[in-house]
């Protein structure tokens, strides 16, 4: 797993830089922590993402974590974490540690052919799989108010790829 550029599949521009505190990664359950989230010990929570429904067991998943509507809804918004992970099965699990209590939203896509972009069809609609938290986004880019969820304890979020 690598920390990389943001990947909101519907956002054209990539984030320029991320300020990451520490990065802990494991093959099965990659774990991330970020300086800006590390405030007090009692407010630290773990977020586990289960991403399901891979139609192809190859390529890379690009995932971004957001903590506010302005950035999530913007084409050029800054994510607080970005993950890229090679796909080997039909489910992927990613965990973030030491997240503060708050509202978060996820966007991701599966670059099945490793061309480092979300392929789109003639109409501009993604032809590779993508997903948002709360499984929204059936009719275009999801907004933060639809995709966001509260984190006030350890939590597992399932995202079914579209």
């Amino acid at each position, binding site marked *: 797993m690598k920390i990389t550029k943001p990947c909101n599949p519907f956002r054209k521009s990539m984030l320029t830089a991320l300020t990451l505190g520490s990065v802990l990664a494991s093959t099965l359950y990659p774990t991330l922590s970020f300086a800006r989230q590390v405030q007090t010990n009692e407010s630290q929570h773990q977020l586990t993402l289960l991403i399901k429904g891979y139609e192809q067991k190859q390529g890379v998943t690009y995932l971004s974590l957001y903590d506010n509507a302005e950035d999530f809804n913007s084409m050029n918004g800054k994510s607080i974490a970005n993950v890229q992970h090679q796909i080997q099965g039909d489910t992927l699990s990613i965990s973030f540690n030491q997240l503060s209590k708050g509202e978060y939203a996820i966007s991701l896509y599966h670059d099945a052919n490793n061309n480092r972009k979300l392929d789109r*069809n*003639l*109409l501009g*609609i993604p032809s590779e799989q993508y997903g948002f938290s709360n*499984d929204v986004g059936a*009719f*275009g880019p999801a907004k933060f108010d639809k995709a966001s969820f509260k984190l006030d304890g350890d939590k597992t979020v399932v995202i*079914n790829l*579209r």
Partner: protein
Amino acid sequence: MSNRREFLQTLVAGTACGLAAKSGLSLASGSAMPADFGGAFKSVPKSFEKRALTLEGNWPTDLRGSLYRNSPAMLERNGFQHSHLFDGDGMIQKFSLGDGKVFHQAQMVATDKFLNEEDADRFLYHGLGSSPPNARAARNNDSANPANISVRKMGDKLFALWEAGSAYEIDPENLSTYGRVDWGEDLKHLPFSAHPLRDANGDWWNIGSWIYSGQARTIIYQLDAQAKLKRVKAIPMNQAGYMHAFALSQRFVILVNTAHLYTPGKRYFDSFNFDAKGKTEIVLLDKNDLSVFKTIEIPANFVFHFGNAFEQGEELFISMAEYRNADIMSKGLGLGPHSAFAKEATQYNSDLSVYRINLKNGKWQKQSSQLAMEFPNFRESTPFTVQNLIGMGRPTGTANKADQDYLISYHPLSGEREIYDFGNGFTIEEPLFINGASGQEYVIHSLADRQKSRSGLALFRSGELKAGPIAMAWAEEQFPFGFHGCFVPS
């Protein structure tokens, strides 16, 4: 892809040996369909082995080839019955003609949907008009693609066609499924209608109507004679109207953007509302650059099918089986008590209408045939000529019983018509013009004799429909009701 092809061929080998338990459906016997509609459909196998039909009359020796037809056959799985005819999985039927014999065989189209549902032993997705329990969200337009509307030969390839997703390529000999067809990398899973049209130069044209995700665009495909993509373009539409087919003239691709408008809903058909006070738009696209030449507003209507279109001087003639609303789709082709298969179904009558459009000023006139004619067909070898159309249906007079189908020929300019009445209890399916090796033209169609619970073929000499069929061929059983197909001479 090769693995998948091998797998599918293995599947076909299995089905040819009688793999399937009965679980498809077909129109059942008995003319009193409304009274016992719950039992009006009976199970049929997932495949029909090749069998000779019993012949009547004289089958011409110069007539050789295969009539392919597509039927929405599988309407029930594991206790759940679809509530709309459009939701049955496609079955390709093949009638082989030659040497004075007629054979029939049939095979389900092995779509991704069909294979996944075979594995799961249940329907997994919402249909166009049906909602099986615990349905999965469709990931793309092919997730629930049953490839069940038509089967067409383009070039040397045979395609099973739906309208909201991809074509599937079929083996013309044994009817096995090769797989989904992608016309291009950026065209995967996009709509490709069941009604491609052949141009006079041998090219093929087709449309794909995209009315989802807040967009209304029609994809125009131009393929060469060997079904290789030459050109594709997405044309913005003024409204998200339902379009099942289109028409083609010498200069134009003709879209009829109906007043049956889409906004997202739970089921596909729930997402449409007919705007009776709205408009239908006839959009003329210049074949040269696919620009909009002219958009003509006509009163709100609903259309599935078109006859041919042709230009004479500054006038364009388009024939269409026109409905005053979209009840035929939302109710008439449902499998409930409001079905058009019921006796009192005249409310769903279409009217074969001819629109005559002045290409200079866009003014138009409409000529009504007073014929509730559907599945209009014309001679594809001469698409832009004035010619009589053939179809099935009934005159719109009140004396005619609604459950009685007629074979109809209609001339769009003179209004001349010829009608053959099979009598009560017959369901007539799409008729086609075909030619024997000697050049003799015939009209052929499949039909069901509901009283005897059997399906078959009827063959007429073209221009002599009133004389009745010159030959018929009957099976011992009834095949699934079907929509569209093609004849491939050998």
